[in-house]
């Protein structure tokens, strides 16, 4: 734990970010009949934030160990 404390904390932050983004009430903000590039806003937002969370996790983990 100790040697990788910062990675764990960053991942926990990503977890919290994901919890907020992928949940009510943020979700309700995007439940509107708007279409982005032919895709409904809610659908785009969900998959977009999902991908963002995964990308952040990959970034945190795969960055070269210093």
């Amino acid at each position, binding site marked *: 734990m100790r040697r990788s404390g910062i990675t764990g904390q960053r991942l926990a932050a990503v977890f919290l970010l994901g919890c907020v983004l992928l949940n009510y009430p943020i979700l309700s903000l995007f439940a509107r009949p708007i279409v982005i590039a032919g895709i409904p806003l809610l659908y785009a937002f969900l998959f977009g934030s999902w991908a963002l969370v995964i990308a952040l996790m*990959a970034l945190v983990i795969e960055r070269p160990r210093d």
Partner: protein
Amino acid sequence: MQGWVLVIVAFAYLGMLFAVASWGDRRAEAGRSIIANPWTYALSLAVYCSTWTFYGSVGRAASNGIGFLPIYLGPTLMAALWWYAMRKIIRISKAYRITSIADFIATRYGKSQILGGLVTVIAVLGVVPYISLQLKAISRSFVILRNYPDVVMPAQAVAPFLNDTGLYIALILAAFTILFGTRHLDATERHEGMVAAIAFESVVKLVAFLAVGAFVTFGVYHGFGDIFRLAEQSERLRPLLTVPASGGSYATWPFLTFLSMLTILVLPRQFQISVVENVDEDHLRRAIWLFPLYMLLINIFVLPLALGGLMLFGPGVDADTFVLTLPMAQQKGALALLAFVGGLSAGTGMVIVETIALSTMVCNDLVMPVLLRWRWLRLNERTDLSRPLRLIRRCAITGILVLGYIHFRAAGESYALVATGLISFAAVAQFAPAMFGSIYWRGGTHSGAIAGLCGGFAVWAYTLLLPSFVKSGWLPGSFLSAGPLGIGLLKPQELFGLSGMDEISHCLFWSMLVNVGLHVGVSLIGRQSADETEQATLFVDVFRRTQELERSAFWRGSAPVADLLPLIGRFLGPDRAREAFLAYARRQGVESLEDLEPDAELVAFAENQLAGAIGGASARVMIASLVQQQPPGIDEVMNILDEASQVRAYSHRLEQKSRELEDASRELRAANEQLKELDRMKDDFVSTVTHELRTPLTSIRAFSEILLEDPEIHLPERKRFLAIIVKETQRLTRLINQVLELAKIESGSAEWHTTEMDVKDVIRESVEAVSQLFRESGIELSMAMNGEAIPLVRADRDRLMQVLINLLSNAVNVCLPNQGRVEIRLGVGAGALRVDIQDNGPGINPADHETVFEKFRQVGDTLTGKLRGTGLGLPISRRIIEHFGGRLWVQSELGQGATFSFTLPLQREGGQRPLQLAR
């Protein structure tokens, strides 16, 4: 499409799977494991996506829109926390050789067999419907595809037993799982080949699903935009594109997310793959983002498939089958076959891993504990248990699949795929409180875990399982609508009037409340046994206890002297640390500390130095923090220091105390011995004195009586008697005087008239006093004193004379009359005068040289019959000489005469010599 084509394809696929598995096993045996890389690990984790995902997601999306997503968002979020939770679970499982989740929970709470059995039972009951769901999905896809090119839903009526594809699928899967899972037994329960096959299956199902999705999205329609635009125009489909305003979707969402977060950790198959089959803790790093990515990919086309299917088919086609029926409807036979294989891979993967995990649990935590108790089986006397074990595993696998099949026949078509899956999830989620409690809460007890599990499972059964029986028609509908026995408050799906939640959220809320509440409550009320406390510490502090596992990783690192020296200096003292490092530098052949190579060897040297001061474990932590360039928190350092120094101080104090205690008890023992000895001496003394007094008294009395009774006695006779009486009376007086004197000397109350004197004079006087005695006995007395002046000594003249007279009269007594010769010698030695009195009597046995100085001991009495002393002369003489600071002793051999000698210390120049007290 002909049935035999499907059978051949299915068997070809299973054959391929088996080939991959044996290849994996062979590679593992050759030491070149294919599963020992993070990609395989992440792919095998995707066993999470069963047919429930492959077929069921589309079905759920067709009725709930985005409602299928939380089941994948939960694991995604949880993956971020794997860094803490999963790593810890893996570390614990590796360190303590955990083989299943039942084993894990049982081990944590004091290695409890009851708990292990309980977890196993719940797992089997909870997961069997899930397995039956896989059988159902595979058999339905088989039946549907057989009708190709027509899209016909299978008849709702259950097929006759022997024509039922589900049965054959169950049996084939059982055989296959047995082949995979129990080919050999391994202490760690690891199955490399199986993992390889599962990873392969994950690729297959992803490819199949993406192919179908891409075909429908881009082949049938013109991309995502097209599908969504068309759906938007349909009154029926529009609600699927947004969150339903009513129906509590926002309320369901977090519950489902939470539920899937828990299950990704505690599902038996996930535990098997992510923990038991894990090769290297480090693989988890990549899996943390790779596994969510996999789930994202496999879900991208779910909504387009659902919308496309709903638009193409009427209500006659089940949305759960869209993945298969969409290509069929477009006359794409090959694609439909690929979808079938994808579904098959999703189903087989899940079934294989789940039944292996469950069979391990059933065997290790349910059957074996019972069998080992049956003494008549004599299992514990058998040296090789692998055959019965394998047999039990195989029976368990078959049993579980048969159970799944029975459930499949019984439940029939009453429930959609997703609903069954969620019921299973909710059952398995009951392990979560015990699981998290076991790795983060030291205080959880065995009773708490059992109470929580039982309570949670009971609530689950009441709020989800019984209602599902109602839907299958096994229980009357009034049970749901009016509550049991008409009690409205106990309605299973509106417990205590809680409404407005869907059944899963409702169950999850109540069961978790009861589960966590009982777990914590009972734990806090009760007490932990020693076993539980020990296990709790082992689990919660696993990272502190297994640092050595990380060692190999550590010492690839390095640290410069400039960092290490201050650290060591903090514990050893700067000077000592510097000296140690300088010595190390000299051994390395460099002149100064600055020239030292900052390599792993230096780090190891520093660790060794530190280990001597604060113990090996603490040292490793300290060094590790430095090597990783992360300075340890001051709190951690203080903690380590505190603990180490406290323990050292304690043990030091303890040692000191016990040493003191030992000393004290030794002194006490000695004092006690001395007291006993003194007591004994006193008793002896008293009895001896009375004895000595009685002898003269008896003779005085006897002669007096003769004189009294016989007046006729002749005068000479009378005179002789009277002389005896006088002599005995004198002896009596002498004896009493001596006893008194000895008592005085010993008690220190004797009076001493110490003056300076010339010992020559005293000797002369004494000789004169006893000369009469010598003459009477005809014993020759000679003096050897040279004429020169002798230094003066300080002593009591009378007492010294007493000593001399005593020694001289003793000499007379032992010598034979007319033959005896006694010589007195006076000499000056080192700081003392020495007087020897030598006789030529019978001598004294060397063994008795000290005894003669004891009170009332008259050595040689029996030899000569002549000694008539009181037995107190020598003891008194010795006390007197010792009082003057000198020494009195005897040298003698039997038949060689004896020499009594004493010394008197000479006065030191210019000062009063303090007199040494005898006692």
